[in-house]
């Protein structure tokens, strides 16, 4: 990305669109492309540079944004029929920061509907393919954002992560994906799935690039009450430093020894640990005794919040509306009939499943048994992490149980799909930062990732360790063969 200092932004962005034109017919990672406005924005950057005006840290760099973040000049669909034609009247804070940093927004990327899924197969706009193997998923829900980086369309993209939606697709697509500490990036303008778990984060070719992007999008935002009023670290410096001598790294035994873990991924994680040891880190075993309850707790808390957050899509104010059919209108009145048909037809099956789960769990008589119980589990999980970080600086384990699976393989089996989140939901439930970085290529030629998790606001430690790994390995430099 240093090249931007010499090469015109216009050329870089043109190259980006040339790459998109080549891969997009097969990969189909974008829900919207903004070539015209992107080219114009690039030319403006070049004019600014010629005039000697100060330039932002991402001047002229093409960035793709997951279609879950509001953009005032592009549709924002959340991968849903419900918002198929929705154009927000405002920019999300993260998008605003990207523009202020002179980044070029090339378009919006495909995702599981309302970020609910782990394969980008629940999108209303069709599936996205993994650039490494077109028969396989890029992961999800930020599948589009991961695929466009892996395909070489853009060096940077923005994803969101509620239970692993940045880290799992990053692992499946051989790139770096960081889920920051809850509250580090503003959620203002991020269309909510589960508000207490959602975080925006950077996805990139390399740790250094992810750190640069993180520097731009992180920080306090008075528009988000859950945003942390603490200034950001120098992430770029941490990512170039890469000195981890004396760093205490904990191996999560429950994850590495998990019977459902793919053996190739286990080997890659162990190899990464060996690399960390060689770089001067001290490796110790750590236990997270409640980690097995992470997925069940997550699949109560997230649907509860989602059922509430998605109530606003009622056809009355914006987005999709289905006219009520006469029979239902006669039976229940025109209002209820409009709600039923709008929500029945505007949402896909997975979204409806989660709304039903959440509505059920919040209902009188079930609230204590499900929602409150899940919150208690959540506290225990956070306590496990707190205890672990008493003795180690970061935790290492797999990002996913398996490499990218085949399209269609799990889409009809929600439980199998939910288990994709096995190793990632803990960080969301605890609100801690976690990063997935490439750690190997399996015998089938698919990338696999290793996940590092840190204490709250430990992004710099994660980036430093991940940079140390990338300084000693070349997995992040490998590209799909197409």
């Amino acid at each position: 990305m240093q090249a931007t200092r010499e090469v015109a932004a216009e050329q870089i962005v043109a190259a980006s669109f040339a790459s998109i034109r080549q891969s997009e017919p097969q990969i189909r990672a974008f829900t919207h492309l903004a070539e015209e406005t992107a080219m114009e924005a690039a030319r403006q950057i070049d004019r600014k540079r010629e005039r000697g005006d100060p330039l932002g840290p991402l001047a002229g760099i093409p960035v793709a944004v997951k279609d879950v973040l509001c953009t005032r000049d592009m549709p924002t669909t959340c991968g849903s029929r419900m918002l198929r034609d929705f154009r927000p009247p405002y920019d999300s804070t993260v998008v605003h920061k990207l523009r202020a940093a002179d980044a070029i927004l090339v378009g919006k990327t495909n995702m599981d509907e309302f970020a609910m899924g782990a394969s980008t197969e629940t999108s209303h706009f069709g599936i996205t393919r993994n650039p490494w193997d077109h028969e396989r998923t890029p992961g999800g829900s930020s599948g589009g954002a991961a695929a466009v980086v892996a395909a070489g369309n853009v060096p940077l993209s923005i994803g969101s992560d509620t239970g692993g939606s940045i880290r799992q697709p990053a692992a499946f697509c051989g790139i770096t994906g960081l889920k920051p500490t809850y509250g580090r990036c503003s959620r203002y303008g991020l269309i909510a799935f589960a508000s207490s778990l959602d975080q925006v984060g950077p996805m990139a070719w390399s740790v250094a690039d992810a750190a640069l992007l993180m520097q731009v999008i992180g920080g306090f935002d008075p528009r988000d009450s859950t945003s942390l009023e603490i200034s950001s670290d120098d992430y770029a410096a941490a990512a170039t430093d890469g000195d981890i001598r004396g760093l205490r790294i904990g191996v999560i035994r429950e994850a590495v020894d998990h019977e459902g873990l793919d053996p190739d991924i286990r080997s890659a994680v162990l190899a990464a640990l060996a690399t960390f040891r060689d770089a001067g880190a001290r490796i110790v075993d750590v236990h997270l005794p409640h980690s097995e309850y992470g997925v069940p707790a997550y699949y109560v808390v997230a649907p509860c919040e989602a059922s509430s957050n998605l109530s606003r899509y009622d056809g009355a104010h914006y987005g999709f509306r289905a006219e009520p059919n006469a029979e239902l209108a006669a039976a229940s009145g025109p209002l209820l009939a409009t709600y039923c048909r709008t929500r029945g037809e505007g949402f896909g099956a997975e979204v409806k499943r989660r709304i039903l789960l959440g509505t059920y769990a919040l209902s009188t008589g079930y609230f204590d048994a499900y929602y409150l119980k899940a919150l208690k589990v959540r506290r225990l999980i956070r306590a496990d992490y707190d205890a672990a970080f008493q003795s180690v600086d970061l935790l290492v384990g797999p990002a996913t149980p398996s490499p990218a699976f085949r399209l269609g393989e799990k889409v009809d089996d929600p439980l199998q799909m939910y288990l994709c989140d096995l190793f990632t939901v803990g960080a969301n439930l605890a609100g801690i930062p976690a990063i997935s970085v490439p750690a190997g290529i399996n015998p089938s030629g698919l990338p696999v990732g290793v996940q590092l998790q840190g204490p709250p606001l430990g992004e710099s430690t994660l980036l430093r360790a991940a940079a140390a790994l990338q300084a000693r390995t070349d997995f992040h430099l490998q590209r799909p063969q197409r």
Partner: protein
Amino acid sequence: MIAHSTDPMPYQTVIGLEVHVQLKTRSKLFCRCENRFGAAPNTQTCPVCLGLPGALPVINQQALELAIRAGLALNCEIPPLTKWDRKQYFYPDLPKGYQISQFDLPICASGHLEIVDPEDASATRRIGITRAHLEEDAGKSIHDEAAGRTDSRIDLNRCGTPLLEIVSEPDLRSAAEARVYLSELKLLLTHLGVSDCEMQEGSLRVDANVNLWIDVSGEQVATPIVEIKNMNSFRSVERAILYEADRQFLAWQENGKTIRTEPKTTRGWDDARESTFPQREKEESADYRYFPDPDLLPVRIPRAQVEAARENLGELPAATRTRLEHEYKIKPYDADVIVNQGPAMIRYFETVAGLAGDGRRAGNWVQQDVLRMLKDRGETIESFPVSAAALGDLLARVVAGSLDNTRARDVFTAMLEKGQDVASAIAALGIATVDAGAVDSLCRELLEANPQVVEDFRGGKQQAIGSLIGQAKQKNPNANPQAVREALLRIVATM
């Protein structure tokens, strides 16, 4: 309309009120939109109050401060921690599909309000306040059902307006008491600057929970609770309660249903027909599925903030009444009337009383003359042409004896109608101080002209002198009746 008997009731009416007041904040509860009534529909909105995807609420500190202020004035406990919950139901004027409210940790808990007993002005009744919590208002649905149309329009300007819902204990025992409670609450909240409490603009809305305790051969039977909605004035609250009490008693006589067998129901009040009618419940209202709003952090309220707010409360209306009674020696009724007019009237009265040096006289004047004039002229005390200083000056002259009450009224009228100050009004009316010599010669003249009066007085009829005072006033309107009386008595004794 069911006629209600004036005989002692065979039952007791039990009433609890839920009062929603819009807080007088500059901006809305969770966004920066202006909090103002009467703008063109859908012009005071933003992504946050429209509930657009991705928008997030941020609490308005001023709303918290006003709620704490109201809570302290209502003798509530302000807990160290309060939080936000989502109350979920579908309705087109609720764009998020949930209302941000407070469920189990309201900002104000367990207080009370003292009200004057409507049966006895010198007694008070303590009405418990269960809780008061903050919540956002919904928009307004305007149903155009004219000419067979089924259009509905929605104005979202009101969305996100801060509301304080004040819930009383079922401590009220009559419609009259409910009305006094509402008046006192309104007075308190307007006095504190918490709310305008304009029922016409919807900045104060009342729901009444009503049932009866019926005495059945020594045992108490309670009728099912009915919540009455849609009341648009204190008067309609009063009438709705009276109507509902009669209706419930008749219903109980007819069907014998009690609180044990029947759930709470909702009825609306029809002002024109003066009756309550069963109301259809809101869609999905059966289960609001409250849960903590994950977009908002719980609010910690430091003790120091609460104590500072308590110190800044100033004198509350109830205390002002007592103080005015003692400090100015005015009757409880006069104190009540003055205090109920609000802070500007209290200031006016105190200034007048201070300058006049006679609180009781000032109380009479303010409570009678000034209030009558305000009512006749449709004016408020702030714009009243006779300033407190001017009225005080006038009454001081009455107290000093240079004017009598009747002449003072003439001066007051002149000041009011011609905008004159006291001195020029007195001059214009030709009022001059009559010196003692002139009074003496006037009295001597009158006594000599009325030997019968002198005769009667000597015979022991003191009051016979009175007729001469009237004649003296006719001969010289400026003569002070008191001075005339004294002179007559003095002179007749020497005759």
